[in-house]
């Protein structure tokens, strides 16, 4: 034992890889059920009216959003952190018993948190704040999990052999700090039972903010949860995995630094665009709109940097499904970071607000960019952590095309649905009478809702292919030697 050469230890990374796949399937399955419910309302009571409380749209909706954000994505972020962190800092988790313990504690406490969230949401226990539905006891548990990750993150950085921090590490640190700040401030709440001397349920709370202030804090949080959950850590991943898998150095390292600081400075000011034409002061609405447009620059800075990293190596996109996933991810990143600022322009927002176009925008970002990048990262990690070849390249290709078709169906149907909806809501005659009632829009949108449900179902099928491929890689892939793992991941036909 004493003479064994030091190796990276992926124990914790593997644990989080497992929850990434499982919670990804759960979250997306619930999403697909919701999509079919919207197209065919009878699906709400598919298991009978006795359990309708647990199967209806409103009960399942937060379960979908929280499972994909805090289940799938967060697990993916941590799986990659416990992999990338060690490698670019050139230090192994095996070198510190404390860090190993913290890593495992991090995972198991997280799992307890996940169970608490699923149970409480299914029981209908919620603060009613979007993406922050958890009641105060769960919030406290989440803060503890976050602090443990922080200890583990800065602990590993403290032990490093590499003096400089690779750009991905900066992004992981920003994820940690950003979410910590947002989560704490948005979840400031008063437990009513204790404040009132024993009235109501012990877990119930009310927000410390009210009215417009509550809305402002909520959307400062909500929008920046997208920033620090769906953008910053995913950029961290692509800055490591794309160069590593393709064997190409980042096109411009300096541009990556500039984009990093640009993103950090601009993103936090854009949340107000969720509240355009509301009771929020007008100057704040304008400011958030302007910052949203400026946000194109740092976003495209990273995305262009990634595409240019492939300069002269574009044949890899054709030959490797793994590179395909990443190049499509960064293309979708460009696409949705152009779409978002357009929607944040006041005159466009007047049509887009509250419509399905917003839902479409979220999903081309999350399905096309976030999930594609996380799955690509896991595919790259699998041969290295399991020391086995990826089970099937053709299965990966099939998954890629099925899911790409799914995303395209999803966002195109939601574009049409959203703009139709927005136009119909606004239409009026010469006297100002509305031309349509709400049910008119529902009738018109039905085919697009069905197309969206089909798109979502295709994406879910891809998730099952992904899970199967990962499982077979872990259990039945050909064993590989260290020298096969330098750049392009080994995969069987």
């Amino acid at each position, binding site marked *: 034992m004493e003479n064994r050469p030091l190796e*990276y230890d992926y124990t914790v990374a593997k644990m989080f890889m497992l929850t990434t796949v499982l919670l990804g399937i759960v979250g997306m399955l619930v999403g697909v059920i919701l999509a079919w419910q919207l197209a065919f309302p009878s699906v709400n009571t598919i298991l009978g009216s006795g359990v309708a409380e647990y199967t209806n749209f409103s009960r399942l909706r937060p379960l979908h959003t929280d499972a994909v954000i805090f289940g799938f994505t967060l697990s993916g972020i941590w799986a990659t952190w416990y992999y990338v962190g060690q490698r670019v800092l*050139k230090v192994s988790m095996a070198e510190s018993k404390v860090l190993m313990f913290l890593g495992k504690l991090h995972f198991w406490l997280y799992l307890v948190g996940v169970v608490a969230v699923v149970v409480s949401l299914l029981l209908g226990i919620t603060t009613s704040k979007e993406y922050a539905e958890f009641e105060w006891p769960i919030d406290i548990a989440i803060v503890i999990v976050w602090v443990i990750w922080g200890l583990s993150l800065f602990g590993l950085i403290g032990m490093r052999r590499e003096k400089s921090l*690779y750009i*991905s590490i900066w992004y992981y640190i920003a994820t940690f700090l950003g979410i910590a700040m947002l989560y704490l401030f948005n979840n400031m709440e008063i437990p009513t039972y204790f404040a009132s001397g024993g009235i109501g349920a012990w877990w119930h709370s009310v927000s410390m903010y009210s009215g417009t202030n509550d809305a402002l804090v909520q959307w400062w949080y909500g929008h920046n949860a997208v920033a620090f959950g769906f953008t910053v850590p995913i950029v961290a991943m692509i800055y490591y995995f794309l*160069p590593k898998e393709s064997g190409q150095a*980042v096109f*411009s390292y300096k541009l990556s630094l500039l984009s990093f600081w640009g993103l950090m400075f601009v993103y936090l000011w854009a949340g107000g665009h969720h509240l355009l034409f509301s009771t929020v002061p007008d100057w704040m609405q304008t400011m958030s709109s302007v910052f949203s447009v400026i946000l194109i620059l740092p976003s495209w800075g990273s995305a262009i940097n990634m595409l240019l990293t492939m300069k002269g190596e574009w044949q890899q996109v054709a030959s490797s499904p793994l590179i395909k996933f990443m190049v499509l991810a960064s293309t979708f990143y460009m696409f949705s970071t152009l779409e978002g600022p357009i929607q944040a322009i006041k005159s466009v927002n007047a049509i887009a607000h509250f419509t399905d176009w917003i839902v479409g925008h979220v999903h081309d970002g999350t399905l096309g960019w976030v999930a594609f990048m996380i799955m690509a990262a896991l595919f790259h990690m699998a041969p290295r952590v399991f020391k086995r070849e990826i089970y099937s390249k053709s299965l990966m290709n099939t998954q890629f095309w099925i899911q790409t078709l799914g995303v395209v169906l999803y966002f195109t149907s939601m574009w049409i649905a959203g703009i139709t909806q927005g136009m119909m809501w606004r239409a009026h005659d010469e006297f100002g009478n509305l031309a349509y009632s709400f049910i008119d829009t529902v009738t018109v949108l039905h085919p697009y809702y069905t197309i969206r449900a089909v798109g979502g179902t295709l994406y879910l099928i891809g998730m099952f292919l992904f899970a199967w491929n990962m499982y077979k890689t872990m259990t039945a892939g050909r064993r590989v030697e260290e020298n096969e793992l330098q750049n392009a991941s080994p995969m069987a036909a």
Partner: protein
Amino acid sequence: MDIAQLQAYGYFFLVLFLVVVLYSYIYHLYKNRKDHDGVDYEKYSNMALNDDITDKPVNKVSDKETKKVGDKNE
């Protein structure tokens, strides 16, 4: 010209100015790999490409410390 029109022109030229400044700066970064202290940032890309635990760090923490933690390795 009323104030709204002035604002609109002002807004347009400000955005144009920022875009020109930003992209000139990006071009400048790309053209001169090294900054004024002679540091070549592009070498940091190698932190991802050469990331085996036995690979040589781009910038060691310090000779002394590296030796200390490296002991286990030998």
